[in-house]
């Protein structure tokens, strides 16, 4: 009798749990899983110059890798593009990690009062009060040929000719990406850091650890979940970005996202879908490698 009541009770509570998780699960299913499924299906369709043909074909993929074997040992277009994107990704990841970790460390350990932590965190969000595009355009008067930086450097006599690698270059793309995405690294790392028991740092000090030793042996390992989550944010965004690369690169720099956009503009949906699947695969591999380092499910 009692056992039956308990079973009924646990059945009821698991029903409620499903009910609570249900709405978000449905949204994910309808707006994330299904479209993704369609993308995968469409990537195997055929197409001609103006329409897609719903029949099984690998043309989306073969067109993307066209000439790759023939050009060996040289690199074909898609390989060069991905290499370029991976390079951006690696540089931006490393820079946002170092800057983000430092900012998070300052907020979590150097700022003692809760009020100031909140105020300074809010200040970090100020760039997000405007749109991505406006934030990017704002670089132009700063970095342009006659921008503030060039004028200043010429005024103090450091250079004679304006530097033209400041804008519409790999430099400006990387600068803009770092500026846009550092905050995505700060938040999860900060979140990990404030959960570190302060007595652990005291215990490390008691055991004779120097400041750097405490950082490497205590703080960094305990921030791993935050570092991985921040890295996933930054890597997925940078891998798929085409707007920043387009605007800041003066539409002259190729990126993995740009390939998809070009195919879409040409109404070659199966080819665009195929590239989306390739990009997804590459990004997924990077993240799988990252999560190998840390079991996030365990750490959360």
């Amino acid at each position, binding site marked *: 009798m009692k056992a039956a009541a308990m079973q009924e009770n646990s059945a009821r509570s698991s029903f409620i749990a499903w009910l609570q998780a249900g709405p978000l699960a449905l949204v994910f299913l309808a707006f994330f899983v299904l479209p993704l499924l369609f993308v995968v299906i469409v990537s195997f369709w055929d197409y001609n110059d103006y329409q897609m043909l719903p029949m099984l074909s690998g043309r989306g993929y073969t067109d993307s890798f066209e000439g790759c074997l023939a050009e060996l040992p040289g690199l074909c277009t898609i390989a060069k593009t991905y290499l370029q994107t991976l390079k951006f990704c690696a540089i931006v990841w490393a820079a946002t990690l170092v800057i983000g970790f430092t900012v998070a460390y300052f907020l979590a350990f150097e700022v003692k009062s809760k009020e100031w932590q909140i105020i300074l965190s809010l200040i970090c969000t100020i760039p997000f009060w405007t749109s991505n595009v406006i934030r990017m355009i704002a670089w132009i008067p700063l970095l342009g040929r006659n921008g503030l930086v060039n004028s200043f450097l010429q005024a103090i006599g450091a250079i004679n000719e304006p530097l033209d690698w400041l804008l519409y270059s790999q430099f400006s793309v990387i600068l803009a990406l770092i500026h846009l995405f550092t905050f995505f690294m700060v938040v999860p790392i900060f979140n990990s850091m404030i959960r570190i*028991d302060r*007595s*652990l740092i*005291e*215990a*490390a*000090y*008691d*055991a*004779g*650890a*120097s400041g750097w*030793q405490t950082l490497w*042996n*205590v703080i960094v*390992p*305990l921030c791993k979940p935050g570092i991985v989550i921040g890295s996933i944010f930054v890597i997925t965004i940078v891998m798929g970005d085409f707007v920043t690369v387009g605007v800041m690169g003066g539409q002259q720099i190729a990126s993995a996202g740009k390939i998809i956009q070009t195919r879409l503009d040409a109404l070659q949906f199966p080819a665009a879908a195929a590239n989306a699947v390739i990009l997804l695969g590459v990004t997924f591999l990077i993240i799988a490698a990252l999560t190998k380092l840390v079991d996030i499910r365990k750490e959360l």
Partner: protein
Amino acid sequence: MPNPAALELVALSKRYGATTAVDTINLRIAAGTYCCLLGPSGCGKSSTLRMIAGHEAASDGDIILGNQNVTDLPPARRGTAMMFQSYALFPHLTALDNVAFALKMRGVDKITRRGKAGELLELVAMTPYAGRLPTQLSGGQQQRVALARALITEPQILLLDEPLSALDPFLRIKMRAELKRLQRELGITFIHVTHGQEEAMALADLVVLMNGGRIEQMGSPREVFNRPRTAFVARFIGGHNVIEAGSGAIAVRADKLALCPGQTEPGIAGTVTDVEYQGTFVQVVLKTEAGEELIAHLGEAAFDAAPVTVGDSVIATWDDTQAHVLE
């Protein structure tokens, strides 16, 4: 183990802004002593411990360990080690690596430091759990690991900040005995902060009772219990009645009070408000005419010879030799 050294605090003070947490205390603890810093919360005992450990800078005064003034040295160079209240084990390291941490910081190679850590885990009977993470250990096991971790640097003084407060009562008594055994075996000084007088009496060679940033009284548990210097000590150490006599306050141990029925004897008259059977004794609570509360602990046989019940009027008497004049 290195030669254990004596610790001396000279006019040591700690001020936080306008408030004084520790007020010019002087204390000498001989080598190999189990010392308990006892007192209510906010009495300055933890600040004192943290200053000895080097986790809090002294505002004034000196800390002398052996023949070295360690007041301005970092914790690891003092010859002290601290065991933290919540143990502060590193959650990402196994029990073995937690214990080996201090040696890793000194650059000792992996095999040597793990070997040494293994020995210490054996000392606290934790060898089977060497590979576990702190979250996979019970409170008592975590404490043993924390103890081993503190001992790996071979400190002359081990500092323990309320080490037993996170344990349940049963485990607390068990760990208490173990701390005492360990201290005896190692022969080093333990300084143990607690707010439990029972814990201090059970463990300490030297009880230092603090109040308001000052040392109220220090001595062996017996000295403090049998000759409380002030009313505060008598009340805090427990088991005493503080009675206002004509010339000043006196303290009489609860188990030295006797109760006589009727109103003829010289003593203090009162009404019984509570009778509790405690096994080895019976606790009788009286309310005097002045409104004070008196507690008498009567042996079971003595109580049975002249039982009282709530509402009875009785006289509490004591032998004059048991009355102890307070400052």
